[in-house]
């Protein structure tokens, strides 16, 4: 087993040795269900999951930041980073191991929303493709949020600072694409720049995937976000691991 897998395995197990994981899963599942019905799941009289997926960006801003805040901040605070980086392991392997473990953990959370799918299928005959791309889009977005959170967690030893910074950063990426933000920006920015801002927003790409189409542009948007923030995390950690 290589070092990446060792870190991944340890990290994933550590979620379930404390009650934290179960509390997270519980809160997430309750909120995701509650918001779906509150947004008028029955009233719409449509067998689809639009109302379920539309809550996902903001719900996961909180969830992903809270999951990723401890990744490096805690490790540096208690000093176990000195153990980890005096073992034969590279920073990249460790960062990827932790990121993947967090991603798998939130993927479990996402997978546990399956009763929603069953409900929709029981009530009508929904478009399977749209539901599948909906889950893929959410999953990619979660990866991007975690990469951002992982970066901010490496930046500080304080978990509270880490969670605040990463939820603000993720929040900005989501809210940038809101019609209200764009309309406001259009008031004083040239149209080209407003479009650029729109293209940078996670919401734009997330919603485009929600429509059931996986385009190269949308996929590469998430791939670049994840790779970029992860690379930044490696650089920052290399600089700050001992401080």
């Amino acid at each position, binding site marked *: 087993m290589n*070092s990446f897998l060792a*870190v991944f395995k*340890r990290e994933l197990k550590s979620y379930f040795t404390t009650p934290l994981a179960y509390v997270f899963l519980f809160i997430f599942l309750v909120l995701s269900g509650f918001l779906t019905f509150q947004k008028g799941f029955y009233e719409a009289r449509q067998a689809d999951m639009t109302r379920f997926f539309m809550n996902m960006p903001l719900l996961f801003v909180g969830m992903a930041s809270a999951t990723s805040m401890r990744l490096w901040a805690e490790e540096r605070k208690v000093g176990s*980073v*000195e153990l980890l980086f*005096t073992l*034969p392991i590279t920073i990249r392997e460790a960062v990827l191991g932790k990121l993947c473990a967090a991603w798998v953990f939130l993927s479990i959370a996402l997978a546990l929303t399956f009763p929603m799918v069953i409900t929709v299928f029981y009530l009508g005959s929904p478009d399977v493709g749209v539901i599948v791309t909906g889950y893929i889009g959410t999953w990619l977005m979660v990866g991007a949020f975690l990469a951002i959170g992982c970066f901010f967690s490496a930046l500080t030893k304080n978990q509270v600072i880490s969670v605040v910074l990463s939820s603000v950063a993720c929040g900005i990426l989501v809210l940038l694409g809101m019609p209200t933000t764009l309309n406001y920006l259009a008031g004083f920015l040239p149209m080209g720049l407003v479009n650029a801002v729109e293209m940078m927003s996670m919401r734009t790409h997330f919603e485009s995937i929600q429509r059931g189409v996986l385009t190269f542009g949308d996929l590469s948007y998430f791939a670049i976000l994840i790779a970029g923030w992860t690379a930044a995390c490696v650089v920052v950690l290399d600089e700050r*691991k*001992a401080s």
Partner: protein
Amino acid sequence: MIEVKDLRRSFGPVTAVDGISFNVEKGQVLGLLGPNGAGKTTAMRMLACFIRPDKGTATVCGHDILKDPVRVRQSIGYLAESAPSYSEMTVGSFLGFICDVRKIKGAARKRALDRVVPTCSIESVYHQTIETLSKGYKRRVGLAQALIHDPAVLIWDEPTDGLDPNQKHEVRRLITAMSEEKCIIISTHILEEVEAICTRCIIVARGKILVDSTPQKLKDENKCSLDEVFRRITKHTGRS
């Protein structure tokens, strides 16, 4: 086995390690002594490739700490000052993780565990979570972690800190028993320990090597106890 060449490292305005060079061979037990803030921990951290030197380099078992840190870490058993570990894990699963990272598996893993667990006397706490252990036991887990891959080089930062007198004695015996086969560097503030186990001692202060000798020679030359020698040499070097 260890060659240190002009190692330097500063943190902001403070120069923690200021150009130290020394060699350590197999069979030697080197005691690194010095007042608080002398640069012992920084020097050891650089050898274990945890922090990078600003200047200079070192080789451990022929591997350069700058060019090949992963190989260096493979050949070192490093115990940090606070003996860090993952507190939510049990001792068993923690050692399992170390074996995973160090690629010790199957029968070799069983042999390694059968060797280090009794050596560090942690059988009784093997299934306990680390956060419930006392300081001494935590340190023993740290020792087990540093010995599990039977490394050629041991770098231990204050290995007996927090241990009871019996355990201190055990650790010293362990070091002496291993000393012929390995190259060992320890840092300590306990001078009897140096007399008891070290075949050589280096006194550092303000990041510089002041003395490189053997404990016996130091005592003979100065005709006083090691405590007295240490005080004389480092009297005017404390950071203020």
